[in-house]
C-alpha cells in the first residue's frame, strides 16, 4: 500500500482534511460520552426491583378530615379488598417500590452512634406484604400476624423485628451473617432484630440522588395510622382491570368520607413503573437519537467532501488508470485516504472525549468514562468513514482511463 503519495495528495487539501478529521473527532467525543450515559441509564432501567408487577395495582386513599379511628377504618378497607372475588390478597402501606414517595433513614449498629452505617428505605407493612408483592425471601421467615402492630405517626419507628434486603444486610454485616442480628432505625431508638432476608426490594425512589441505596430496603411490621395510605393489591391473573374497578367501588361502598383521585387514585403497577423510569428512559431515547443523527450528519459530510475530491481528481484518476492502475487500486486509494484521516480524527477525538468527560465529572457528578466506550466509538466511526467513502470511491474506480486523454 502506497501511503506516501496519499499523504502528499492530502497536503494539497489541508482545509478539507482538517475539517473531516475535526468532524470525526467531535463526533467521537460526543458519541462515546453519550453511549456511556446511555449504558448507565439503561443499567438503571434494568435494575432488579424484586417484585412481580403483573396483576398488581395500588389504591391511593386519603381520609377526609381527621377520623378518630384510622386503624379500624384501614383494617376494614383491607378486609374488604381481600374479600373481592377478583383479588388474591392486599396490604396497607405508606409507600411502595418505585412509588416516588416514602420514608428512608440512616441505619445504625447502635442507638448512640453518630454517623449512620448505611441508609435504607423503610416500608410500613404487614405479614401479607411478601405474598402480595411476590418477594423472594432467601433466608429467615416472614412476619407473624401477631407481630403486626399499629403505629401512631408521632412515635418513633422501632419495630422489634424487621426483614431487610440482601444488599442492606451485606452493607450492615459484611461477613454475611445478618439473620438474628439487631439494627437501629435511628438514634435513640430500640433495636430491631433481623428475622428475614429478601433477595431484592427496590426503594420508592428512582431519582439519581438515591441511586446509592436503590436496593437497600427494610420491611417493618407496622401499620402507620396516617391520613393517607396506599393499598397494594394483587389481582387474580387476567382480572387486573376488573379488580381495579371493583376495588374503588367496594371502598366507596364501605365508607365515602375519603378521596381516591378519579385519574391517579387507582394505578396499575406497570404504569407506576413506567412513570418512575420515564425520565431515565427519555434521556436514553434522546441520547440515542442524537447519536444516530450525529453519525448520519458526519457520514453525509464525508460523502459530500469525498465526492468533491473525486470530481476534482477525475483527470489524475484517468491518468493512473491509463498507466495501469486497476479499479481496485483506485478504490483502495480512497478507502486508505479516508482511513488515514479517520485515524487522525479518532486520536484527536479520544483527547476531546476524555476532556469532555473530565468536565462533566467536575460539573455534573458524572462517572469517569471507561476507555472501552472510546474504543467502541472509535470502531463505529472508522467503519462509518469507510462506509461513507465507499460510494464516492466506487464512482472514482469506474472513471475510464480515456478521461486522461480528454480535457476536462
Amino acid at each position, binding site marked *: 500500500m502506497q501511503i506516501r503519495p496519499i499523504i502528499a495528495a492530502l497536503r494539497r487539501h489541508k*482545509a*478539507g482534511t482538517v*475539517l*473531516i478529521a*475535526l*468532524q470525526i473527532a*467531535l*463526533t467521537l*467525543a*460526543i458519541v462515546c460520552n*453519550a453511549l456511556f*450515559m446511555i449504558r448507565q441509564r439503561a443499567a438503571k432501567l434494568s435494575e432488579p426491583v424484586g417484585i412481580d408487577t403483573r396483576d398488581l395495582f395500588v389504591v391511593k386513599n*386519603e381520609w*377526609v*378530615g*381527621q377520623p378518630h379511628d384510622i386503624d379500624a377504618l384501614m383494617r376494614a378497607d383491607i378486609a374488604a379488598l381481600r374479600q373481592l372475588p377478583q383479588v388474591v390478597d392486599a396490604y396497607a402501606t405508606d409507600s411502595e417500590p418505585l412509588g416516588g414517595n416514602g420514608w428512608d433513614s440512616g441505619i445504625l449498629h447502635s442507638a448512640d452512634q*453518630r454517623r449512620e452505617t448505611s441508609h435504607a428505605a423503610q416500608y410500613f407493612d404487614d405479614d401479607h406484604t411478601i405474598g402480595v408483592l411476590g418477594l423472594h425471601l432467601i433466608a429467615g421467615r416472614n412476619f407473624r400476624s401477631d407481630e403486626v402492630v399499629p403505629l401512631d*405517626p*408521632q412515635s*418513633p419507628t422501632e419495630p422489634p423485628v424487621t426483614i431487610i434486603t440482601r444488599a442492606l444486610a451485606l452493607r450492615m454485616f459484611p461477613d454475611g451473617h445478618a439473620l438474628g442480628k439487631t439494627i437501629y432505625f435511628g*438514634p*435513640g431508638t430500640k433495636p430491631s432484630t433481623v428475622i428475614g432476608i429478601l433477595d431484592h426490594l427496590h426503594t420508592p425512589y428512582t431519582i*439519581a440522588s438515591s441511586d446509592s441505596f436503590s436496593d437497600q430496603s427494610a420491611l417493618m411490621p407496622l401499620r*402507620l395510622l*396516617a*391520613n*393517607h395510605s396506599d393499598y397494594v393489591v394483587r389481582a387474580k391473573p387476567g382480572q387486573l382491570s376488573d379488580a381495579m374497578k371493583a376495588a374503588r367501588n367496594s371502598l366507596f361502598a364501605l365508607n*365515602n*368520607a375519603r*378521596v381516591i383521585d378519579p385519574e391517579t387514585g387507582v394505578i396499575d403497577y406497570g404504569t407506576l413503573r413506567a*412513570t418512575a423510569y*420515564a*425520565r431515565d428512559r*427519555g*434521556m436514553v431515547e*434522546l*441520547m440515542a437519537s*442524537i447519536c444516530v*443523527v*450525529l453519525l448520519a*450528519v*458526519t457520514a*453525509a*459530510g464525508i460523502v*459530500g*467532501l469525498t*465526492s*468533491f*475530491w473525486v*470530481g*476534482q481528481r477525475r483527470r489524475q484518476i484517468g491518468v493512473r488508470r491509463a498507466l495501469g492502475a486497476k479499479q481496485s487500486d483506485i478504490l483502495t486509494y480512497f478507502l486508505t485516504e479516508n482511513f488515514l484521516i479517520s485515524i487522525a480524527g479518532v486520536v484527536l477525538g479520544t483527547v476531546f472525549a476524555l476532556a*469532555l468527560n473530565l468536565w*462533566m465529572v467536575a460539573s*455534573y*457528578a458524572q462517572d469517569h468514562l471507561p476507555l472501552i466506550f472510546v474504543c467502541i466509538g472509535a470502531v463505529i466511526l472508522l467503519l462509518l468513514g469507510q462506509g461513507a467513502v465507499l460510494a464516492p470511491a466506487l464512482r472514482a474506480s469506474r472513471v475510464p482511463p480515456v478521461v486522461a486523454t480528454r480535457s*476536462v
Partner: protein
Amino acid sequence: MFGYYLDLALRSLKRHRMLTGLMVLAIALGIGASMTMLTVLHVLSGDPIPGRSAQLYYPQLDPQDLKGMTSSKEPPDQVTLIDGQNLLRAKRADRQALMTGGSVPLMPEQSMLDPFYVEARYTSADFFPMFEAPFLYGTGWTAADDDAHARDVVIARSLNDKLFQGANSVGRSVRLAGVSWRIVGVLDKWQPNPHFYDLNTGSFAYAEQVFLPLQTMLELRLDRNGSSDCWGNSGGGAAGILPMDGCVWLQFWVELDTPAKAAAYKDFLLRYSQDQKTAGRFQRAPNVRLRNVMQWLDYNMVVPDDVRLQTGLAFGFLLVCLVNTVGLMLAKFMRRAGELGVRRALGASRRALFAQLLMEAGVVGLVGGVGGLLLAMFGLWLVRQRPSDYAALAHLDPAMLYATFVLSLCATLLAGLLPAWRACQIAPALQLKSN
C-alpha cells in the same frame, strides 16, 4: 449589488441541489436541536417575578445543634417556627411573610361535588403585596387578621370557577378541613415559574388553590406537607402534627427595597443569631445568608442537571453540524474556482467575491433557520409529551423565535468565512488557463 448577489447565490444553490440540501439539513438539525434545548433552559431559568426579584430576599439562619458541623456548611434551607415568628414580628424589612404549604380537604356545599383536596399555602398578610399576586375580586387579609387568627381565605381563580362558576365570591364561605372560612379575595390566574417561594412542593407548574393565614393554621393544626429537616431527637412530624422546635419547615421571605437595607438586614440576622446563641438557643456561631430570588434559585439548582447536559449535547451537535457545513461549503466554493476566476479577471475585487460567497452562506443560513425553527417546534412538542413537571411550559416565545434566526444566520456566516476566504485566494490567471 445586494439583489445581484442574491440572484447569483440562488442560482448557484439551485445548481447543486444535493450539496445545498445537505448543508441546509445539517444547519436545520443543529439549530433545531439547540433551540429546543435552549428554549427549555430559557423557560426553566427564567425570572419568576420580573422587576421585583432583586428586592425579594430569603434569609437563612443556622439553628442546628453541633452534630455533624463543618466549617463551610450552608445553613438550612428553611426556618424553625420560633425563628420565623421572631423575624416576622421584628418587622425589620419593608415587608415580610412566613409560609408553608399543605393540602386541605374541601367539602363543597353543592352536593353533586364529592369532597376533594386542594393545595394550600399558609402565610401572612404581606404575602400578596410582596409577591404582587393579582386580585380578580377583593383583597388579601390584613396583619390584624393574622393576629386575630381570622378564618379568612383567598382562593385561586380556578377554584372560584369550580365552586362559584366564576362569580364574585367575596364574602361567601367555604368549608375547608371541617371549618368554615370567609372568602376575602379571589386571585386572578397566577403561577410564578419556578415556584420560587417554596421549592419543596415541586419547582414548576405548581399553583396553590387556597391561601390561609398561617397563624390560624397553627391554631387549628391543619395538615402540612413539603420538607421538614430535623436534628437531635426531634422527629419529623407526620400528617396532623406540626414538626417540633428542632425542625426547619417554614419559608421566610423579606422585601428590602435598597441594597443598603439588605446590608442592614444581614447585620440584623447576625445580631439575632448572636442573641439566640447568648440566650442558649443556638449552639453554632452565627451563620446567615441573604439571597435574592435569582441567587436563591441558582443556589437550589432549580434547572435539572439532565436539562443542562442535554443543552450541552445539543450545542455539541450544532458544532459538528457547523464543521460539516464548513466542509461542504468549502467543496462547493472551490468547485466554482473557474467561475470565480472569470469574475476576478473581469475586474471584481476580492472583497466583492467574498461578499458574494457570504451572501450564499447567508441564504443557506436563513433557509436552515426556517428548517431549524420547524424542527425546534417539533422538538418542543416532543418535550411537552414527556412526564416532567416542566413539560407543559416548553413553548417558543418571540424572543427565542428571533434568537433562532440570529443564531442560524450567525452560525452559517461564521461557517462561510473560511471557505469564502479560501475561494477568494484563487489566482484568476491559473483558473482561466486550465479552461
